[in-house]
């Protein structure tokens, strides 16, 4: 229960930051994508179901406030959360290469899907431009932010895990 509440707090805080504070922290009119960091991180830390739940919530928030169609981001983020969840077995606390790699790949996939659905489908084939001016800069900035945000999520996860183990051993 406590874990769920804290996760919800993370999602809401990141959502608020991204729509308010980070619009002032743009580099070359690009802002990082905190929602993908959350979805991806919770996915490979906690497994498929948590990944999907976080992805679904993030996507739904984005759909309501930023989206043109309800359900689009929800779908992408749910699937991203699920796929990241299937890498849970490879995940170790100390290793930062896997998280960075996973988040980068998720970010890239997200960028490509948005480009294909909203731009290519409308006959806009300047893929090279969008790749170099939106998708890749966003990826780089997101990775930079990940390095900080991921440590916070990791810290929270460790604390909660330790707490859960303590309460579990008390029962046994």
């Amino acid at each position: 229960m406590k874990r769920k509440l804290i996760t919800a707090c993370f999602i809401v805080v990141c959502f608020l930051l991204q729509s308010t504070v980070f619009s002032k922290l743009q580099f070359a009119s690009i802002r990082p994508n905190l929602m993908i960091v959350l979805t991806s991180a919770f996915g490979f830390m906690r497994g498929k179901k948590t990944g999907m739940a976080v992805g679904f919530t993030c996507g739904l928030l984005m759909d309501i406030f930023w989206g043109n169609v309800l359900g689009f981001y929800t779908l992408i983020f749910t699937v991203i959360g699920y796929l990241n969840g299937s890498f849970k077995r490879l995940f170790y606390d100390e290793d930062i290469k896997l998280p960075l790699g996973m988040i980068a790949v998720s970010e890239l996939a997200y960028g490509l899907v948005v480009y294909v659905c909203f731009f290519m489908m409308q006959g806009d084939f300047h893929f090279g431009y969008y790749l170099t001016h939106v998708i890749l800069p966003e990826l780089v900035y997101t990775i930079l932010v990940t390095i900080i945000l991921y440590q916070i999520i990791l810290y929270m996860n460790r604390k909660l895990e330790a707490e859960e183990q303590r309460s579990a051993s008390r029962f046994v």
Partner: protein
Amino acid sequence: MKIKNQNSIPSKYVLLILVVVCGILLGAERFMDGGGPLSWVANYTVIPMQKGISYAGTWMSDLTDNFATLKDLKKQNEQLQSKVDQLTIDNTRLNQEQYELQRLQQLYKLDQNYGDYSKIGAHVIANNGTNWFSSFTIDKGSNDGIRKDMNVLAGSGLAGIVTEVGPDYAQVRAVIDDESNISGMTLSTSDLCIVRGDLKLMEDGRIRFENLPNNDHEIKVGEQVVTSHISSTYLQGLFIGYISEINVDSNNLTRSGYITPAVDFSNLQEVLVITTTKEDMTKQSGTDSKGE
């Protein structure tokens, strides 16, 4: 209990269920107006927090503004004073013309006045968090009389159009958004053109215009572009921006180029929402002509 929970439903079925839910949502969008009950929930959870952050941000930027030096302020004051003088002169001249226009309009029985729309002020509380689209959230919604398709101004220019309304918030799609598409008109020659936002130009803060007829009318850089009379969602005569570049298309029939919008979208804080929509106006004029 924990183990039971983990084995209850295999996660691939959960994924399947969620995907189906998303599919339903995508389909339901057609029938329900922007989020439905979800936007009501969002209105009482996320919007108050966004308002809080945005007010705190405004307060802090006000605080830093207070440290502006006296010298700067004096210089600015001088500039503004000269501008006021200039504008007063212009204003008297325009007033005279206005009276003349009114008189002539009365003669012609044309009393539609496009200039005086009633407006509501609103604060911008959040932006679009993605890098693909350019929209923003304002702190007024259906409780304040905001409806879909209302035009939004910032300063003297057109900022966007309301696309989605919640009880206490509304989403506004900016003019520079890639999906924005406006029927425009050059002010001096009344030639129609299409003004559309483009993600590729968003960085430079420019928008594109197309399909301006390549006729004898000479249109120079600096020409003002306003919304046209044939647009179905935008009211007539709202200032979009100045033409910054104009070229003849290769078909030799049309001209296209770029517009510098009148609104600075990188720093948008207060906007004005016009409470009449184009639909109201066309309906109104429809009933009027019926009455006659």
